[in-house]
């Protein structure tokens, strides 16, 4: 785990903080504090996950997640000038570590407090439950001192607390190619992903996998290079807001990952997607969920229904059904 001081070195205060110093940055002052809140929406796995050029001539493991407004984590933090740092539920050790890192980064070394997390994000499905715990915690701690941290800062703290992190700190309105092991942004795609309706399936019933313990996939040269055209088509999909192209990118990434981390029902799912006219199949590359992608709106209703029936025929249980452009209010 990185030391908090390193995080400070890496980040530095944002433009806004330099322009208008926040009292939170000056612990010696009689700074006000309050109960802080943080909220994070989950994702439903990725559109693409693989290896991409990093701009300095090297390559990075990176991903683009598919936002999921159905699931979310909320954190509440009550700071104390001294004393222990407690967390509920008690097994959220990474969130507790993130709270400590954030306190240190804000100049509150030695402070304590009570952290409480509520989340309906299924564990180990590959929906970002761990990052959501950590990220909602960091936001809540920052909020307790009246500070809003930039996504780049949040990413660094998340990686320090987790070793790898999802890109949930970037709003769903901003699709990014995110290097999950470094916590850095490789490419801002310049807009949101085109909206899609997702019919989700957990390929392991309702079980999950421990995602952080998985070793990196040993991609072949051809496969590493294949992520370039996927990124090219993804950029086109974002620029044109074309869900059909997004589906093609998702299927391509799914097919490559399936070679290395086979999900047992994937051949049937890929066939099913073709039969019912889905746009594509996406997966949690380090998880157990997969999603059939459709256009949003009434036009795809018939295809979604046929897909639902076909899933039942295969003995696969539908785990969720949502549109990525669903307003958050609609699901609260």
């Amino acid at each position, binding site marked *: 785990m990185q030391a908090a001081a390193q995080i400070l070195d890496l980040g530095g205060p944002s433009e806004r903080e330099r322009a208008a110093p926040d009292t939170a940055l000056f612990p010696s002052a009689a700074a006000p504090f309050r109960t802080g809140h943080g909220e994070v929406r989950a994702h439903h796995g990725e559109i693409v996950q693989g290896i991409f050029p990093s701009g300095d001539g090297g390559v990075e493991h990176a991903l683009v997640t598919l936002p999921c407004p159905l699931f979310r984590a909320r954190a509440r933090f009550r700071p104390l000038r001294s004393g222990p740092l407690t967390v509920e539920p008690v097994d959220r050790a990474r969130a507790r570590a993130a709270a400590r890192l954030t306190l240190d980064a804000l100049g509150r070394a030695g402070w304590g407090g009570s952290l409480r997390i509520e989340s309906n994000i299924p564990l180990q499905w590959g929906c970002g439950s761990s990052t959501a715990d950590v990220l909602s915690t960091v936001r809540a701690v920052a909020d307790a001192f009246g500070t809003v941290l930039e996504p780049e800062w949040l990413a660094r703290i998340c990686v320090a607390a987790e070793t790898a992190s999802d890109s949930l700190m970037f709003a769903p309105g901003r699709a990014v190619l995110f290097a999950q092991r470094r916590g850095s942004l490789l490419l801002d795609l310049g807009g949101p992903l085109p909206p899609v309706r997702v019919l989700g399936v957990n390929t392991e019933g309702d079980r999950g996998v421990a995602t952080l313990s998985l070793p990196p996939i040993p991609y072949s040269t*051809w496969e590493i290079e294949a992520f370039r*055209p996927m990124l*090219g088509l993804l*950029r*086109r999909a974002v620029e044109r807001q074309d869900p059909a192209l997004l589906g093609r990118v998702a299927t*391509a990434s799914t097919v490559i990952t399936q070679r290395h981390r086979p999900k047992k029902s994937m051949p049937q799912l890929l066939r099913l997607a073709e039969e019912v006219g889905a746009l594509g199949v996406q997966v949690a590359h380090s998880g157990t969920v997969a999603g059939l992608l459709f256009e949003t709106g009434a036009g795809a209703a018939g295809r979604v229904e046929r897909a639902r029936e076909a899933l039942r025929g295969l003995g696969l249980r539908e785990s969720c059904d949502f549109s990525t452009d669903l307003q958050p209010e609609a699901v609260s």
Partner: protein
Amino acid sequence: MSGTVINANVVDAIALPRIVWLRPNLIGLAFNLMKLLPARFIVRKALEEGELAPGGLIAETTSGTFGLALAMVARLRGHPLTLVSDPAIDPPLQRRLEDLGATVHIVREPGPTGGFQQARLAILEQVLADNPGSFCPRQYSNPNNPASYAPCAEQLAHAAGAVDCLIGSVGSGGSMCGISSYLRLLCPELTAIGVDTHRSVLFGQSDAGGGRTLRGLGNSLMPPNVDHTAFDLVHWVGAAEAFHATRMLHREHALFMGPTSGAAYLVADWWARENPDQLGAVIFPDEGYRYQDTVYDDAWLAAKGLRLEALPRGPVEWDRPHDGDDPWSFHRWGRRTFAEATGTRGGALELVA
């Protein structure tokens, strides 16, 4: 790619093609020198994987554009380069290669089988054996040749989305098999049309009966990098049609390209007329400068009996690959293996990898 960045060197600056509309449903990928992509990638991977030491000798057999691309890459990366060629190499190219620091070794006698190409391979093996630690890119068998075309597929996917058809000439198999493999990951239904020439063994003709007038595509040996199962259709284009189409590409679109581009354009333009509801992309591998005294010279064309007044409206369909000089023909290859499509085991000779 053009843009606001300053490239590290000219190879990076010009490796990717210009993308231009040729018809409402046809896109041209116009390269300065397409072989820069495999040359750059093969050398980079060889360095990464320790097959080539920093500053180590690179040796290859080529009399064409791959040699020029290698010479540029080797110069910029600081590698000595030996190229084994035959007397057909044109003097301006040889001077340019030597200006880039390459040693050009000309083989004077063809081999007993496989012509000059086999003789050149024998010399190459000798150069490699004499220089421990040297590296041969082997564009005909190195899988990093087709793999090198991913940036081109990326550019095309970004610019055009999902294309229905890719058309291009086939020589080593690198560009067509590489680009189509990447595009098919995203568009499995992509139609791939390979353009070959008569007396090339690539798709089942024999190379007997004199050399090929149209150079830069086709082969007398079968490169392992030709994945026959990539191709839905194969066209055989003769020199006269290819040269005429090269000139049309210049006259109608101001694209000054070589005759392999003309051969691909002939087929692509026909495909685009036949398939108005689909979107195609055609590969133009190099520029016209090397052909100013030949393809771009009407007197030369007339003297060679290669001057056409007009192009045939379309190709003749062959129900199977066979020998013959039909002006322009095609076969529905159907993504079959060579053996399945021709009923024979292999080409005239397997190229020794």
